[in-house]
């Protein structure tokens, strides 16, 4: 299918974006700002947890790791209309973001559990 045919399908579905961040194919392009800005809060909280060694965060961090891994796994099976378009790139970017955040949470959990061992 040509780009024009994909654009027509987007218009049919009522999902054709024409605003200021438009990438020309009917999608908004925020240059990855969404995942980066969301990640800032998580990085900030991770830094505080590591510096304060707060053990009450172990359960929420584990829940976060499981949640992010499951979401990333689900994203892997999403099939976009255009097999090589911007939607697929965005989905893959989110898969990576979820994996990175999830595994960071796992490493911090392990650090909290084993920090007595590291302090020796």
């Amino acid at each position: 299918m040509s780009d024009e045919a994909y654009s027509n399908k987007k218009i049919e579905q009522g999902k054709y974006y024409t605003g200021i961040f438009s990438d020309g194919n009917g999608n908004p392009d925020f240059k990855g700002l969404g995942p980066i800005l969301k990640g800032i809060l998580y990085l900030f909280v991770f830094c505080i947890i590591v510096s304060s060694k707060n053990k009450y965060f172990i359960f929420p961090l584990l829940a976060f790791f499981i949640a992010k891994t499951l979401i990333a796994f689900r994203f892997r099976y999403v099939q976009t209309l255009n097999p090589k378009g911007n939607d697929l790139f965005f989905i893959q970017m989110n898969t990576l973001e979820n994996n990175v955040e999830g595994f960071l949470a796992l490493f911090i959990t392990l650090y909290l559990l084993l920090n007595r061992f590291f302090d020796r």
Partner: protein
Amino acid sequence: MLYYMNSFNQTSNNSNYLADGNTKEDLKKLKAHKIANGTFYSGPFSTPRGNPDFGYVPFLGEYIFLIFSLYFLASNNYRFATYAILCYIVGSILNGIRFYYVNTLTISGDDIKFIKDIVNHNIIGATIASLTLLYIYLKNK
């Protein structure tokens, strides 16, 4: 690519999308397409359309951490906490808008439901963070 184009030509009359319905024939067509692309999931939690379905468990897991973190930030006066929360709100809104414009292969399958859940998830996350920001503002006033 040729297979992909052929599968698009084999669509039903009322829709141009591949295997939109839930009939046996539609599901068989979709399964063949997904196997060819290597995206057919057949493990535990699988749906008839070949996708994993974890329900709302992943979203709840993320909310637990988000609420716990925001409570921790709101109760302790960290210097840059408000900026980090503001970034999260803006990021969630941008992510929500971008996900709204994602077009999935089928118009009524599991993928579009998941994408809609992700849009809602971003909106709820932004709302929780906004309420926390409001609480911090009123507390420090």
